């Protein structure tokens, strides 16, 4: 194996662990899954064409390993627990008046690049992602990081498309509130 390739894989370990932990909510299992991913990547080194980044390629392998782990863990359909355990959709009702209008106008977050170009923004976003309730986080990461299609997620977790949209809506609204509180309303983070 090319030692530089091996080093590159190791550099990605922390990122893969963050994604796996958010999905699986089980550190030991996440570590196993990441270990399996890196092992598979080493075995498949010859198949890495360099067309995508190493990170993207590894995320693809990780995706399959996580889905396998979720399948093995799954004993009952997720939909009931997802809809009960996490915050209700009703929690976001408080954001709107009786007639459905916003209580508070959504704030102006300024020039996106002012935030997206800063590592501190992504540190704050990681904290916000970590705060998502477990099943919400899992679905959000499957969609936004692993880029599974709606159909794939619904099939894997045996939820309906409507369940999926509600969960993703909750995730986005939670993330939005967290970013608003911890980044955009803090001092000079609106540019």
């Amino acid at each position, binding site marked *: 194996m090319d030692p530089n390739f091996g080093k590159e894989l190791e550099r990605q370990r922390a990122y893969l662990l963050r994604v796996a932990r958010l999905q699986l909510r089980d550190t030991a299992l996440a570590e196993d899954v990441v270990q399996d991913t890196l092992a598979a990547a080493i075995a498949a080194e010859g198949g890495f064409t360099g067309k995508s*980044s190493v*990170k*993207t390629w590894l*995320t693809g392998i990780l995706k399959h390993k996580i889905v396998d782990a979720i399948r093995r863990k799954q004993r009952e359909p997720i939909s009931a627990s997802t809809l009960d355990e996490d915050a209700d959709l009703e929690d976001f*009702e408080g*954001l*709107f008046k009786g*007639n*459905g*209008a*916003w209580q508070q*106008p*959504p*704030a*102006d*977050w300024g020039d*996106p690049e002012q*935030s*997206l170009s800063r590592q501190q*923004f*992504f540190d704050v*976003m990681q904290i916000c992602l970590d705060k998502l309730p477990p099943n919400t986080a899992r679905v959000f990461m499957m*969609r*936004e*990081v692993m*880029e599974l299609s*709606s159909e794939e997620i619904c099939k894997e977790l045996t939820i309906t*498309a409507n369940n*999926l*949209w509600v969960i*993703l*809506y909750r995730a*986005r*609204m939670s*993330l*939005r509130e967290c*970013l608003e509180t911890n980044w955009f309303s803090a001092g000079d983070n609106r540019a």
Partner: protein
Amino acid sequence: MSPFRHAIGHLLSCKDVSRLLSQAEERPIAGWQRVRVQWHLAVCSMCRSFERQLALMREAMRRYRS
């Protein structure tokens, strides 16, 4: 009742639009619904602001995974 009056009689609220904009990331808004969303966005600066917030988060997640 003409189709035009029917549409006016069922205006979307900001709450409706916030859910549709989120849903649009997974499934494009159906034609008839899209017109109503666009009407609402044309007159509601609050929802335009929310739409920009969603776009920022979408781009943030794109960079996060890349």
